[in-house]
């Protein structure tokens, strides 16, 4: 009995270890953060894209309506994909779109907007990328829906039909 016990334990242990590793391989290693956040928006100051005048966050997010802050750059390919959805959203009276231009070349960013349209009411510059970190962004593009100075929801990556419908359902 004792002779069989030890090999059985070893075999069972190997099977358990194999299953753990096998399951580990199936799961993605990329961390996906929780988007259900009700955090206050960060306090920051920036420069306006066109006029280059200094502006603080309290001047931008100053009313109780919905704001959509979109982090974008002309060099970012997924930003082109989502741009048509942002143009559609800009037609809505329920939400004000704010762009945060991340580490971009001014002329390239201007050409991008000329070609694809400008959905933003205001565009702010994030030249060294630190404002995006203050917002807790994970990459470009990233979008934050804001209401009463709180982040209602956060969309990592490009917006799509499903996410746009979700935004419409929140802001209506």
């Amino acid at each position, binding site marked *: 009995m004792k002779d069989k016990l030890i090999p059985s334990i070893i075999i069972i242990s190997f099977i358990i270890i194999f299953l753990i590793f096998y399951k580990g391989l199936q799961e993605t290693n990329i*961390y996906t*953060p929780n988007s259900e956040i009700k955090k206050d928006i960060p306090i920051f100051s920036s420069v306006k894209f066109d006029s280059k005048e200094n502006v603080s966050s309290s001047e931008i997010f100053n009313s109780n309506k919905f704001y959509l802050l979109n982090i974008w750059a002309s060099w970012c390919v997924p930003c082109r994909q989502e741009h048509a959805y942002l143009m559609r959203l800009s037609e809505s009276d329920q939400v004000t779109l704010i762009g945060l231009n991340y*580490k971009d070349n001014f002329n390239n960013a201007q050409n991008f907007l000329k070609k694809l349209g400008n959905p933003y009411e205001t565009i702010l510059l994030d030249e060294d990328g630190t404002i995006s970190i*203050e917002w807790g962004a994970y990459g470009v593009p990233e979008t934050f829906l804001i209401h009463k100075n709180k982040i209602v929801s956060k969309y990592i990556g490009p917006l799509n039909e499903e996410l746009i419908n979700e935004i419409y359902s929140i802001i209506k």
Partner: protein
Amino acid sequence: MRILKITLIILLLIPNLLFADDQFERNKITKNLRCLICQGQSVYDSDSDFANSMKILVDKKLAEGLSENEIYDFFKEKYGDWILYDPGLNKNTYILWLLPILIFLLGGAIIIKKLKFKN
């Protein structure tokens, strides 16, 4: 003349020493922060745009007079415990911290029992 020379050398070295201290602090912090883009690397090792922005932000926070732990708290508030390579003891990490001690104690107990059995 000699005293003047020594004083001059010391005066020239002071900014370097201060800068080295800042760099040391910044490197120590960025080595403990996880890169957002390449998640297997620290911010210190990574050269991605977001890692470089985080390095600038660490410099800014150090210049504002924030301590190492205050900077960690700032990043934890934005990104959660996950952002730190060396997370503190809390309800999510207690298994991580206590399991090695438990395994060590269990192993020790088995060895002691075996030795006693042999004797």
